């Protein structure tokens, strides 16, 4: 082909455009494969849990306490315990986290103190959960004298989830266009009125999504609750936040590694229940987000 640059007057592909097309195809293939690889373990896990654990899921398993050294009975106290833990930790972490996020995004002056706080939050989000567990023992169980209790465990979970709740709140608020704030301020609204009437209604979906994702994270953690309030075996239900409780994540750890002669299906079934709980939360969060997004206004 002796087609010179100047002779190429139609719009057909040149060797150079051909090359861009093939590079684009390769890139696309790799990105697609990566996505597929990501889904593979997810389906493998679900498949494994369902095939191995489904047979053990019965009304008795879901609604009764473990018996016979946890080799029989069910996981009801652990389900209820997990609900207590995430309920109490949510009640603490959500309001504090959201308020702190609002302060940092809407009020905090641009200075080194604010930058330090933001840096601390980012770093706190990366602290391993076992470190939070030790902190929880030191701060809540011992120093505040709350003992091993739902309260101590929930506070530990709250401390663990706070940084991400703050960060996602800030992000949701920052996504509200600044032009809306200007409009509101120049009409004589105070900062708070602007936040309340304009900023929050337009960021609530992002804020709630962040909160709910942290709830499901809290539901799955073992280390932070192990030394602070989750019991190995406690066949009755907690009456108050001062009691200890069983928890699904802890129970899973126990029946998989700590006690002999557990039916093979029990750990899988426990994991399946935990996963279902987490997935339910996440679906709820996605649904809420979609609903609130649809009502969104710009």
């Amino acid at each position, binding site marked *: 082909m002796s087609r010179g640059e100047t002779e190429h007057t139609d719009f057909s592909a040149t060797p150079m455009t051909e090359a861009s097309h093939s590079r684009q195809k390769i890139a696309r293939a790799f990105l697609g494969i990566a996505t597929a690889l990501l889904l593979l373990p997810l389906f493998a896990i679900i498949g494994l849990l369902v095939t191995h654990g489904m047979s053990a899921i019965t009304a008795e398993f879901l609604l009764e306490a473990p018996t016979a050294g946890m080799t029989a009975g069910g996981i009801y106290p652990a389900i209820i315990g997990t609900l207590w833990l995430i309920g109490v930790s949510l009640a603490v972490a959500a309001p504090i986290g959201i308020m702190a996020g609002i302060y940092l995004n809407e009020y905090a002056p641009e200075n080194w103190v604010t930058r330090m706080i933001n840096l601390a939050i980012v770093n706190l989000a990366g602290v391993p959960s076992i470190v939070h567990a030790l902190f929880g023992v030191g701060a809540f169980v011992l120093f505040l004298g709350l003992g091993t209790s739902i309260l101590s465990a929930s506070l530990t979970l709250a401390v663990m989830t706070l940084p991400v709740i703050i960060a996602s709140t800030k992000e949701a608020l920052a996504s509200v266009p600044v*032009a809306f704030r200007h*409009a509101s301020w120049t*009409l*004589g*609204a105070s900062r708070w009125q602007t936040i309340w009437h304009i900023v929050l209604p337009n960021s609530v979906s992002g804020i709630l999504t962040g909160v709910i994702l942290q709830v499901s994270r809290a539901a799955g953690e073992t280390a932070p609750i192990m030394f602070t309030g989750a019991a190995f075996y406690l066949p009755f239900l907690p009456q108050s936040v001062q009691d200890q409780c069983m928890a699904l994540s802890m129970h899973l750890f126990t029946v998989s590694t700590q006690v002999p002669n557990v039916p093979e299906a029990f750990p899988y079934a426990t994991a399946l229940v935990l996963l279902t709980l987490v997935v339910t939360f996440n679906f709820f969060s996605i649904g809420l987000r979609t609903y609130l997004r649809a009502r969104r206004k710009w």
Partner: protein
Amino acid sequence: MANQASIETRDVRLWYGEFQALKGIDLDVSRGRITGLIGPSGCGKTTLLRCFNRINERYDYVRTEGSLIIDGHNIYAPDVDLIELRKRVGMVFQRPNPLPISIRDNVLYGYRLHTPKAERSRGAEDEALESALKSVQLWDILKDRLGDRATRLQLEQQQKLCIARLLPLKPSIILMDEPCSALDPDATAKVEELIRQIAGEFTILIVTHNMAQARRVSDECVFMLIGEIVEHGRTEDLFIAPKDQRTADYIEGRFG
């Protein structure tokens, strides 16, 4: 008070951190008239405009000095309440920025903020809404869809709505920062017409890059250059017989 200037500034200086954006502004803005603010990009028009409702202060690093008197009161005095100030000094932005709520709620947003709960009634709100929308010629077009999102309107209507929502507050001054620069020529003409129409009731200060618009719309005109006022006079004088060579150069398009 009637023939006193609406805004009087004396030696207003403003810094963004180390950078001085206004270098001693002395300006008397006539009451009830339209004053155009022209000058090349970056000369400080927006900055000056934003001194009058103190919205510059949202940046911590802004420092303002000098005296700025609106309706006889120094607006930088310690007892001045920003909420009261902004009620009296309305602002229209370059890009129309209706709030992401209904048309009705937009027009009544400021009104509700500033009317005690006890004095609010559906009837009073309806009246304020209708009269504000009538003033900007949107009533007939929008009266059957007042519940629609304001952010879905055409840009021209959005900008008119942004003017309408100031009216229930009965402001004494309306600041406009290039209010037509996001609009097409047709919409521009309509918004200009509206501005001319509501003039008289309010003191209007309008920043524009468009010489023709300044000539069409304003009664008086101020030419700024790098943080200073070069010339201020009646619009026809300033455009036909500028006193300063730099003004002449600018309006003839020799720079900026």
